[in-house]
């Protein structure tokens, strides 16, 4: 890992966000290949998401707007997210390097397969 590579990984993440709506995989892969510790990977990813999603939220508010019904639905769902967060955080703290690697592998596999499936759905819709 180096400052130049950090910037490049961030740039690839920005490009991926615009192209396929996924900011996480490029940064996660970069941190894993760089040998960062599981705790550092989690903390860096979560803070990176906090910044990028907060910026996206402001952009939506200022441009297309967010309907009251969506705020209401979010208000109903946020307590469930907090509950998941409170359960998941100590689990993450206790994850060993091997278990963390398995979780990261599973999440990246889902992300990769989901992206391919979305492409297949797009293609099928075109050929109909």
């Amino acid at each position, binding site marked *: 890992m180096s400052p130049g590579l*950090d910037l490049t990984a961030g740039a690839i993440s*920005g490009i991926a966000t615009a192209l396929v709506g996924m900011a996480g995989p490029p940064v996660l892969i970069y941190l894993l290949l760089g040998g960062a510790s599981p705790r550092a990977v989690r*903390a860096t990813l979560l803070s990176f998401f906090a910044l990028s999603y907060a910026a996206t939220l402001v952009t939506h508010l200022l441009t297309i707007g967010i309907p009251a019904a969506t705020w209401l639905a979010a208000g109903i769902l946020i307590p469930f997210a907090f509950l998941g967060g*409170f359960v998941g955080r100590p689990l993450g703290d206790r994850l060993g390097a091997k278990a963390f690697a398995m979780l990261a592998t599973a999440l990246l596999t889902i992300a990769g397969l989901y992206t391919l499936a979305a492409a297949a759905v797009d293609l099928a819709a075109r050929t109909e």
Partner: protein
Amino acid sequence: MELSHWAGLAATTFVAALLQAAGGFGFAVLAAPLFLLFVDPPRAIQLVIIVTTALSTVVLPGLRRAIAPDLLVRLAVGSLAGLPLGLIAFRHTDPVPVRVAVGVIILASLCFWACPGAVAGAERRRRSG
């Protein structure tokens, strides 16, 4: 919206938040496609954005010491620079091959990281062949 839809949204939110809090990543990957089963795409995307932002407020405080500020700033600056490039590419490229390429890159990078033995073996075979 039906009660069963709300139950589906709530269960998806809980599991996706648990994954994100434990692993640092995964809320959008899991929630976005499942939310689409219950609400229309614009609302699904905005729900993911709002709920992820809210989730950060409860998950981040305990991890503050593990954050590398310089690394975070460089990633954020790089991302800001990459975003307009991606938007330009989005306008001028076909999304299907782009998605296929991104999916393949994610899986190939994963293999490179998770199966170094397999990669080294392939490299040895390539050199000897």
